[in-house]
């Protein structure tokens, strides 16, 4: 097997290279199940990270992964944080997902964050607050210490959902290795 190419930081100047594919509306504005998810990317001092790139990937509400061109479904979000380190995008809650051991996992989005200062992306998940039972049974959430589990669950706010990503600090978000 050939050796993998190592990761390097996205640096501070990626916007002119990556903004062309910015994707903040994963579903149409008329989709009945659309939900706005917003939040901040924060550093260890609690300061917003204005030069972060957030990417999301997910199944649709039927649990189906893209691409489904006939209904314009690709399941990919790319959001560049604003000057305050905030991001926002519109999507749908995915359907239930099968875990590696065949168990059904709670609906979630997979998230990558890239930024100056991150030599490789961090990987996290966004779970949904109205899925309390499914979250309790989720094979990944179950393995996480209860006091940190909440960092992976969005909270209801402003008619949508709010999900902060703390790169570091007391409330550091749970990050994954995969």
């Amino acid at each position, binding site marked *: 097997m050939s050796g993998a190419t190592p990761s390097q930081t996205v640096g501070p100047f990626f916007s002119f290279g990556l903004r062309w594919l910015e994707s903040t509306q994963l579903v149409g504005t008329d989709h009945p199940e659309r939900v706005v998810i917003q939040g901040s990317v924060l550093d260890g001092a609690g300061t917003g990270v204005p030069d972060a790139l957030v*990417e999301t990937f997910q199944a649709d509400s039927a649990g189906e992964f893209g691409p489904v*061109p006939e209904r314009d479904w690709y399941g990919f979000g790319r959001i560049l944080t604003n000057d305050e380190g905030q991001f926002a995008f519109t999507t749908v809650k995915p359907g239930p997902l099968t875990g590696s051991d065949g168990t059904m996992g709670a609906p979630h989005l997979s998230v990558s964050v890239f930024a100056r200062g991150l030599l490789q992306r961090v990987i996290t998940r966004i779970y949904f607050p109205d899925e309390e039972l499914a979250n309790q049974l989720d094979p*990944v959430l179950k393995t996480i210490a209860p006091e940190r589990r909440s960092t992976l669950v969005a909270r209801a706010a402003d008619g949508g959902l709010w999900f902060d990503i703390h790169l570091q600090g007391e409330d550091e978000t749970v990050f994954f*290795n995969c």
Partner: protein
Amino acid sequence: MTSRSGEAGGPAILTPDPAYDVPAYRSSGKRAPIQPLHQLPLGATERHGPTFGHLSLTSVDADLTRQHTGEPIGERIIVSGRVLDGAGRPLRQSLVEIWQANAAGRYDHPVDQHPAPLDPNFSGAGRCLTEDDGSYQFTTIKPGAYPWGNHPNAWRPAHIHFSVFGRAFTDRLVTQMYFPGDPLFAYDPIFGSVRDESARARMVSSFDLELSRPEWALGYRFDIVVSGPLATPDVP
């Protein structure tokens, strides 16, 4: 990430990736996660990934010297290679995005204000989809080295940023391609954040006379290997 476990008790595969917290790279100080990472089992979301075959890209997207009315200043180069998985299989119709400084080492970005000229004929961003054999090719200008504020007299070796997606969410990779023999390698904490020498070498392109076009451009070859944990991908 220093190691990752294979699926279902398979062998651990050493990854070449840098640690998050690299004190010599100052920006990592308040941004590097401190808590241990949780190993993510390979669920449905990890076995799939975004695809971009539907995008309409043109040859100008992959030729950074033809995106304006005039010719950019600098040394014209061709950068080509293949995007492969860990087993050496080509990744087809896979999106490759690049961005870089101009020949003077200046980025077309409002935050880069160091005293070097912008080039009105060079933006420094390109993209393409790989061919059936996993190959990609860009025509561009060799980027200059540039100073940065990490430490006194700090200079980044010339590099081109690369973004690739691979086959699944687990494969996603952003890296930097360097040029052979750069004297700045020894002083650069970002290049040096990759501890393994052979892994560092995989970020360095090689000069390729075959790829060079007479009277036109020098060729540099750069293969990218994404090596997510999917031993037998179930996604085409």
